[in-house]
């Protein structure tokens, strides 16, 4: 973990309520895709945890959905604004565990950390299959970005306005050879993915309300088969086998 300042360089609106924010700053504490940052906001006591979508040595990309007051503020700051950020938090995805037939599955804003993951998998010579679920066509984002990595993309929308009508689980079912999943999204989606019989293993990214984000307060801990774990420090990625719903 590192505490340092990041400067907002560029904001781009992706959908009605989702924005891409690009910052400059020192990302040396970031070690794996799936980690997150904890961003201080003016007049808010607690920091806001946001997944790392992508990073280079001196830039950081976040995708932020307007969920409440803090995120509504965050996406509206002018370029040049400086933020106090704790970076490199959490365990991140373990690429070594993902075998030949791994699939990345994301729902809504949960696709953010999957992009950085897909890019690193592509750089290692194997662009993964990516299944993304949205409510409707106008909610989709980052499709070209994933395609540009060379990923095979499967899209599901609940109303069928783009891709398969249904859920991301329907996409995974259509590829029975996929036996390992790396996934992030809303809880009901994670639960549905977890119950797919074709999966031998997987890594699931969780959310929790956080006090600190770096393991000190026990505000975020959840029961797992291996005892209580802190989503912020022992997670946010939990192994399929240890999850208790």
């Amino acid at each position, binding site marked *: 973990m590192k505490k340092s300042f990041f400067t907002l360089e560029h904001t781009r609106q992706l959908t009605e309520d989702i924005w891409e924010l690009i910052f400059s700053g020192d990302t040396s504490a970031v070690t794996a895709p799936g980690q997150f940052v904890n961003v*201080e906001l003016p*007049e808010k006591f607690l920091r806001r945890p946001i997944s790392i979508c992508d990073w280079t040595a001196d830039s950081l990309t976040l995708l932020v959905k307007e969920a409440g007051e803090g995120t509504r503020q965050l996406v509206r700051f002018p370029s040049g604004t400086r933020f106090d950020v704790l970076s490199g938090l959490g365990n991140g995805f373990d690429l070594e565990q993902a075998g030949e037939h791994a699939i990345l599955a994301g729902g809504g804003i949960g696709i953010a950390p999957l992009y950085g993951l897909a890019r690193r998998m592509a750089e290692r010579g194997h662009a993964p299959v990516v299944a993304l679920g949205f409510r409707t066509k106008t909610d989709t984002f980052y499709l070209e970005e994933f395609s540009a990595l060379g990923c095979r993309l499967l899209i599901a929308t609940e109303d069928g306005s783009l891709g398969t009508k249904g859920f991301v689980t329907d996409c995974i079912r259509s590829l029975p050879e996929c036996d390992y999943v790396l996934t992030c999204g809303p809880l009901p989606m994670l639960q549905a993915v977890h119950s797919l019989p074709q999966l031998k293993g997987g890594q699931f990214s969780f959310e*929790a*309300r956080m006090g*600190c984000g770096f393991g*000190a*307060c026990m505000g*975020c801990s959840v029961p797992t088969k291996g005892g209580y774990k802190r989503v912020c420090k022992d997670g946010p990625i939990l192994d399929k086998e240890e999850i208790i719903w």
Partner: protein
Amino acid sequence: MVNLAVSLAGVTLKNPIIPASGTFGYGREYAELYDLNILGSFSWKGTTGQARLGNPQPRIAEMTGGMLNAVGLQNPGIDKVLSDEVPHIAEIFQGPVIANVGGFSVEEYAENCRKLEDVKQVRILEVNISCPNVHAGGKNFGCDPKAAAEVTKAVKAATNKPVFMKLTPNVTDITEIARACEDAGADGLCLINTLLGMRIDLKSRRPVIANRTGGVSGPAVFPVALRMVWDVYEAVNIPIIGCGGVSTAEDAVEMMLAGAAAVEVGAANLKDPYACKTIIETLPDVCQRLGVTNLSQLTGGAHHG
């Protein structure tokens, strides 16, 4: 040169700044960030006889100027702390440690303190009496002067270490509890613990915290804590650790002027993991600006007869 050293019931701290229980774990996470030896002391996570899993999620909520928590005393239990945390603490911090102890019966408090008797690095026991008494229908020990005194007596009989009773602010008159602890033999007091509060989510129309209520802490409680330290300072003759909403060196000085001999910093560490380090580094400047050469002389300095 400013002398930052203070004394708590005979234990010398190189400065009055102490991370508060529950916001510093057993030191591990912060030791990755800075050398803990700059601290006056640190108060470890409230430790109970048995391991506790704590409350269901969500446990955290936010408010203007602070936060609420209902962690529910999640801790590994005293035996595991003795075997796994105490040896590790010795590696990351060589100063005096304050052991925060929880309990759900008078016997449990005494037993937990007895187990700490041989841990040399633990120089002060901080007894958190904001816990429900399982033998009295779950009524908080800290809300009843008789129960608070009983815990104090039992713990004093079980240990030779200085005993500081940590008081809850959720009472009509905190000086009554403070006096009861002093009369029962407490060597000092620590106040305040969190204030009981709640938040409701407007969309779901349900409490944000699964436990419904949680403890309020952070800058917003500072004036409340300050006032209680002031009142208790006038009521007792034992040293007070002031706690509640402190986030700057100026806050720490103000807390001492109200009557605190040392100062604990809680929620501020969660927002800024370097909060205690920054406070310690700015204290000399603040003292110099105020013409203070000996920090310990500030204690109670705002009481003029």
